[in-house]
């Protein structure tokens, strides 16, 4: 098998990629203008018509889409085709306000899975491999995306989903898994469990791992590689654009190749919206080029990164993006789940707590921890530990319903959370995920 899944596109000349993108962009803009009233209104407001978009050089003329637009248009407002033509939805984990629901036609699913297949082949995958998918399955895009990609490559696919780590390792041993796909923190946890079980990387056959859906560091990569005896590859994506596989790493491990035949990337200044030249650090913006059901033009990811067209030793010509270096909003990714402080605040206020709170995110044993400190009000104080613990538990439950992950709630005395002058510091992220 080739070292590329689709060599004809993955190694095409930059001129050809740009020509292909221009051709597809014209069609995609027309498709959106004709079918998505929400975006047509945005274009009309800006005085742009599909005729103004003749090539990728005209991209800057189009209006941006943000997560707020997705929220406004929820659930069907950005749909580009009749629901009858759709076969799937996937969703982000946020349950209120910020939820994103993406729709797919069968063609959309196929192209998405092809993107994931490219990532698997770039990690050395062939039809002789056994690919263990330990991303969550369900609405989350991780499991379904890599599962589909693995099928496309022809790997023997183990749809494990996440959790039950000892069983994961048992399967790994019994069925000789060679590739593992999961979040980097779960990979690190599997590595630790392997050791606890008295096993070494020599006892398993893994050679590669494809890890994404949350930020991770180079240091973490080396740890995972050592503990599992593999080469660890990064993969990037977001539900809005399909899921994992928007970009993927090759053996050079110096950034992720963007699947440019399907996604057109730009870097902008998050403050002004101005397009920045290649090599600048700024906010990553994606335009879908082939989407039928959920086409997004100039979608602002809020991820801060750098694009580079430097020649890659792997032979792929697709532009590379750096690992996201931060966010241009206050979103955190905790255990693979997108979390906004405002979601937590909404629950606190609804449950009758003060809006003076502190969110502390850390990583213990490679698993993210979420601690929320909230001040008790006089009415909420009772003289029994049972009473206060019950409050903590009930508040944690309400937050879990909102976020989909379990926090640890600590009720504290009034005025113990530091009041800041000016902009309140609500979040302390101790994970040091960005250099």
């Amino acid at each position, binding site marked *: 098998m080739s070292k590329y899944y689709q060599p004809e596109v993955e190694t095409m000349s930059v001129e050809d990629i740009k020509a292909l993108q221009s051709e597809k962009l014209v069609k995609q803009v027309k498709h959106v203008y004709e079918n998505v009233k929400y975006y047509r209104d945005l274009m009309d407001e800006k005085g742009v018509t599909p005729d103004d978009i003749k090539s990728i050089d005209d991209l800057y003329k189009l209006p941006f889409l943000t997560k707020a637009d997705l929220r406004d248009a929820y659930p069907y407002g950005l749909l580009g085709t009749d629901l009858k033509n759709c076969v799937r939805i996937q969703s982000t984990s946020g349950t209120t306000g910020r939820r994103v629901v993406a729709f797919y036609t069968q063609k959309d699913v196929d192209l998405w899975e092809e993107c994931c297949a490219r990532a698997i082949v770039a990690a050395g995958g062939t039809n002789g491999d056994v690919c263990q998918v330990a991303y969550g399955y369900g609405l989350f895009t991780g499991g379904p995306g890599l599962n589909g990609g693995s099928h496309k490559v022809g790997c023997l696919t183990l749809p494990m989903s996440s959790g039950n780590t000892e069983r994961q390792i048992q399967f790994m041993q019994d069925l000789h898994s060679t590739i593992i796909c999961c979040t980097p923190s779960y990979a690190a946890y599997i590595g630790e469990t392997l050791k606890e079980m008295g096993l070494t990387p020599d006892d398993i056959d893994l050679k590669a791992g494809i890890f994404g859906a949350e930020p991770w560091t180079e240091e973490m990569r080396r740890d995972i590689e050592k503990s599992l005896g593999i080469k660890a590859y990064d993969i990037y994506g977001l539900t809005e654009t399909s899921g994992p596989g928007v970009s993927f790493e090759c053996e050079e491990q110096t950034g992720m190749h963007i699947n440019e035949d399907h996604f057109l990337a730009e870097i902008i200044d998050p403050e002004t919206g101005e397009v920045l030249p290649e090599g600048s650090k700024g906010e990553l913006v994606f335009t879908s080029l082939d989407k039928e059901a959920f086409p997004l033009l100039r979608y602002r990811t809020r991820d801060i990164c750098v694009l580079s067209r430097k020649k890659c030793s792997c032979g792929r010509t697709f532009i590379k993006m750096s690992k996201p270096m931060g966010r241009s909003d206050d979103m955190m990714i905790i255990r693979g789940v997108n979390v906004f402080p405002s979601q937590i605040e909404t629950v606190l206020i609804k449950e009758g707590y003060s809006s003076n709170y502190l969110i502390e995110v850390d990583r213990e044993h490679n698993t993210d921890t979420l601690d929320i400190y909230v001040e008790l009000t*006089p009415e909420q*104080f009772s*003289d029994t530990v049972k009473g206060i613990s019950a409050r903590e538990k009930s508040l944690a439950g309400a937050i879990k319903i909102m976020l989909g992950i379990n926090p640890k709630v*600590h009720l*504290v005395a009034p005025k113990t959370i530091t009041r800041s002058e000016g902009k309140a510091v609500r979040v302390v992220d101790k994970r040091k995920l960005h250099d």
Partner: protein
Amino acid sequence: MAVKQISVFIQNKKGRLAKVSRLLADNNIYIRALSIADTQDFGILRLICEDVENVNSVLKEAGYLTTITDVLVAAVKDDAGALAIIAEALRDADVSIEYVYELATVDNIVYLVVRVDDNKVAAAALAGAGIKTVGEDVIFKL
């Protein structure tokens, strides 16, 4: 015949008990009895003092979370089994005990603070078992 108890929320951190007890001392507040419940994060300091309203305002002014609760004080002979007879009487009346602590032992009588959900039912159950409950008029003269 209930007694007022004041409870104070304190963070489970070094020096917090010293701070609140210094505040009480500086205001000439005499602590007749106390108990502390603690968890990893916080503690609840429960106090029996005279003039609980004054104590409450001193603590509140200093920014503490407080709550005043009616508790029972049971007086039984200071023998082995003193707690057992109280606990059994309440169990038999289907009353759950939140917590118990000792207030004082004077003249071979032990005075126990008992916190239950329903003081009336509990006091009746104790009376039925021949256990006396006493009020503030008694405990502050011990």
